[in-house]
């Protein structure tokens, strides 16, 4: 399996690329082959495949096929790319990670990550914390809730 790293580039404000894309996606994506270092810049068509802008679960297979055709990547490789992008500053990583899961669930993304053993642990941690940050309670809140239940149980 080939490994690609996706890099997200912010175009200059008011650039042609941004105008062409109707400002829907201010990011440009390039894919770098980890083996030989070759780099491919994607066009807006690729980007729609790489970063589904929402839609329902039933389109997932279509998007996967489209992504595979246009960039030669499997879905798990795309997720790997998302992980790689979490190496960039957290506020940007958060946006990037959120984009491909619009309309999808954390469950789908986690299953996708599970399919790629190449993803290093630190990238997994960053991606998973970005996915679950707004879903799980803080550990303090969890402990408070648990302590209340224990107190009532002891009553």
């Amino acid at each position, binding site marked *: 399996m080939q490994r690609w790293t996706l890099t997200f580039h912010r175009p200059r404000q008011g650039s042609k690329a941004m105008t062409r894309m109707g400002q829907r996606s201010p990011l440009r994506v390039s894919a770098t082959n980890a083996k030989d270092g070759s780099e491919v810049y994607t066009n807006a068509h690729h980007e729609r495949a790489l970063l589904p802008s929402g839609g329902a679960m039933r389109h997932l297979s279509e998007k996967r096929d489209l992504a595979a055709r246009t960039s030669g990547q499997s879905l798990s490789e795309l997720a790997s790319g998302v992980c790689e992008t979490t190496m960039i500053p957290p506020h940007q990583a958060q946006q990037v990670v959120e984009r491909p899961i619009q309309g999808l*669930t954390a469950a789908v993304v986690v299953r996708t990550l599970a399919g790629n053993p190449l993803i290093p642990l630190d990238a997994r941690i960053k991606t998973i914390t*970005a996915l679950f940050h707004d879903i799980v309670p803080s550990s303090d809140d969890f402990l408070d809730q648990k302590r209340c239940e224990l107190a009532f149980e002891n009553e």
Partner: protein
Amino acid sequence: MVVDHYSLDACALFALLRGEAGHEVIASALQGSGCSTHVINLFEVYVWFLKNSDEAQADAALQAIDLLNVAVETDLDVDLIKDAARLRSGFQMSVPDAIGLAYCARRGCAFLTSDGELAALKDSGAIPIHFFRPPNRRVRRADQIRQALQSARERTARLEFELRSAEGPE
């Protein structure tokens, strides 16, 4: 005591999933000597998701924990239950914590938590307990709950006395 393995409390699992303060300590343990969690602590995570979210998210959370290389220990036998019961009878703690701690004592690993309620047990030195961040806020909250409970008890006792007086012979 040198510890080469950590067992994660449910709150540590939440801190890790959420990426909150102190999760770097857990991540470092994961990348170093490795971490596990007892299945009873995983149960707490699953219950929280079922109560507050849905089953798909609950399954995703468990799968995410697996993806983070947290091994799940399923040891649960009569001896472990006895050890857990001894701990729980001596210290203030929940059943899952007691089982998780008894497992740590058996395995010789440290319990990684931020639960300030376990400070007394940590001080006793009976079981190695490591806090992945200072548990101060948690302890203050526990004190607030205790005070609220004490007030509720006093109010109940007062009302019971008033009820008995009202129901008594004229």
